């Protein structure tokens, strides 16, 4: 039950943030979904790595941030629907470029997040050593 409440809170804000961003409009290329998905992948990479390697986080907080906020912030269904809409409108080039760029940028962002978690933790460790 605690997990479900935590997920609810995270997911509420995740969906609201995504929706707020999606209301900005940039012509036929679905930039807002791309942005949300790439940013979410970066944050997930960063957070999972930090949790796994360096910071102890309660299961409830982890559910709020990961299962709730980030998973609800990013979306797969709109991604697919946008590809179909592009195909229907006959914008074939964008319909092909959109998923390819989503995948490549998403993977890059995730890996960048993981790397950045490493950098942050190294800095933290150095500071701890200096304190001692």
């Amino acid at each position, binding site marked *: 039950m605690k997990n479900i409440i935590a*997920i*609810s809170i995270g997911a509420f804000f995740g969906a*609201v943030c995504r929706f707020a961003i999606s209301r900005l409009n940039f012509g036929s290329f679905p930039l807002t979904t791309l942005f949300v998905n790439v940013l979410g992948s970066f944050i*997930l990479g960063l957070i999972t790595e930090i949790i796994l390697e360096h910071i102890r986080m309660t299961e409830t907080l982890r559910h709020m941030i990961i*299962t709730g906020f980030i998973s609800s912030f990013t979306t*797969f*269904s709109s991604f697919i629907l946008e590809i179909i809409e592009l195909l229907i409108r006959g914008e074939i080039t964008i319909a092909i470029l959109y998923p390819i760029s989503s*995948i490549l940028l998403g*993977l890059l962002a995730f890996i960048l997040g993981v790397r950045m978690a490493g950098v942050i933790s190294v800095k933290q460790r150095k500071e701890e050593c200096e304190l001692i």
Partner: protein
Amino acid sequence: MIYIIVGLGGTIGAILRYLVGNIFKKFTEKHGIVTFFINITGSFLIGYFSTRQIPEEFRYFLIAGLLGGFTTYSTFMSDIVKYLRERKHFEAFVYMFFSIFLGIIAAGLGIALANGIWKA
């Protein structure tokens, strides 16, 4: 007001995703099976409901909220990276390709169903 409707939809979508995930975890530990199932189902539903005539508020609740919250892209990325880290490049590609390909097919079926192409 519209933000609260979307937020509530997202909440319900995420809880459903969590519950479905828990059920699936009993059957498989393989990366991405749950995410795959959720994303394909969500794609079918978004195809269907985006085509049907429904009241605007309900549309926001269902499409931007519930289905947006139910399906997830970040976990999809993390599953691909897990396969890549295990040097299972083929599995990573198959998972990625079929998620998108079958997602498009599922959404297309949803659209066709909503347009009344097949009548039960």
